[in-house]
């Protein structure tokens, strides 16, 4: 209690850290836009998410002070990420691999206006798509042999 003023003194980071991290964030935004102009096929998503994760980490560690604060906050933040990861990974296992067990197809959702008011779809492809809802639909799992 006696060193109240001591502990209450805020931990001030140098200006250079904020400006440095900010510049890196803007630079990485340019990098991710530039990288999107190339087609790396399967790696497009991976590259974009990797850059986004680096940017998000910089924001969390420096702007949100997680690097300097009580590590309990970092733990809380990471626990949210872990649970989000479980949510996404397990859902994707289900939705992508269910076709291995029985045939399942991702059909068109008829709710959209384009599907029930065919007269407003002058585009031939859209018309074709909307007509072939029940017969020819996109399969979720194309390759079940993998």
């Amino acid at each position: 209690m006696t060193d109240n003023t001591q502990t209450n003194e805020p931990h001030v980071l140098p200006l250079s850290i904020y400006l440095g991290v900010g510049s890196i964030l803007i630079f990485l935004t340019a990098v991710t836009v530039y990288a999107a102009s190339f087609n790396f096929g399967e790696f497009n998503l991976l590259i974009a998410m990797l850059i986004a994760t680096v940017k998000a980490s910089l924001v969390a560690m420096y702007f949100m002070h997680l690097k300097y604060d009580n590590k309990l906050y970092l733990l809380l933040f990471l626990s949210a990420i872990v649970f989000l990861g479980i949510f996404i990974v397990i859902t994707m296992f289900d939705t992508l691999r269910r076709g291995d067990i029985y045939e399942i197809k991702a059909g068109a959702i008829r709710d959209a206006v384009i599907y029930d008011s065919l007269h407003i779809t002058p585009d031939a492809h859209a018309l074709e798509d909307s007509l072939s809802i029940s017969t020819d639909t996109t399969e979720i799992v194309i390759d079940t042999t993998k």
Partner: protein
Amino acid sequence: MSQSHTNQPAFMQHHFSDAEQQRESAKLGMWLFLLTEILLFGGLFVFYAIYRAWHPEMFHNAHKVLDVTMGATNTIVLITSSITMALSIRSIQLNKIKQTIWFLVTTLLLAGTFMVIKYFEYEHKIHLGQLPGHYYTYTGVEGTNQHVFFSAYFLMTGLHGIHVFVGMCLIGWLIFKTKAGMFSSQYYTHIEMTGLYWHLVDLIWIFLFPLFYLIG
């Protein structure tokens, strides 16, 4: 009870043992809130992931409809606002009240810029009928369930936009209260917590931008 607190600073609430504990408690509560925010958006990210996995080509076709220049500009605007928000906290830590207000005003203006750009994007899409679910009338995107892409787009950027709006209200309130002399280097919890919230809003946009505008 109250006698032992007479020499405590005015911002101290009686149920905390010292200012540090009060500050740490606020921060813990804020982080718990941010955790629920991540999971709130998490549900929408899963929605995005499922439909993207089911209709990768449709997502690719539909994402071309979005304006990368506007999206990238908004990303830079939001990142800059995050920098100015962080700098406003640094200023209040150094007890520079005027500088704090200046940085908060800049943050608010940048947030406003973000919303204006978002408004033009939305207006354009509404005009073309690139709307979510049932309201989708656009015919320029090939594939199945094109409207789902725009459902995801409007739900995720819309929820994010609501967060930006709430953040703007909070920052506006902070400007008012900082001017009124509520904060100093000894007590700036409200600015710090708003900062954490604002950075999370920025952090979510960092993921939304590539997922919708770049690789759709």
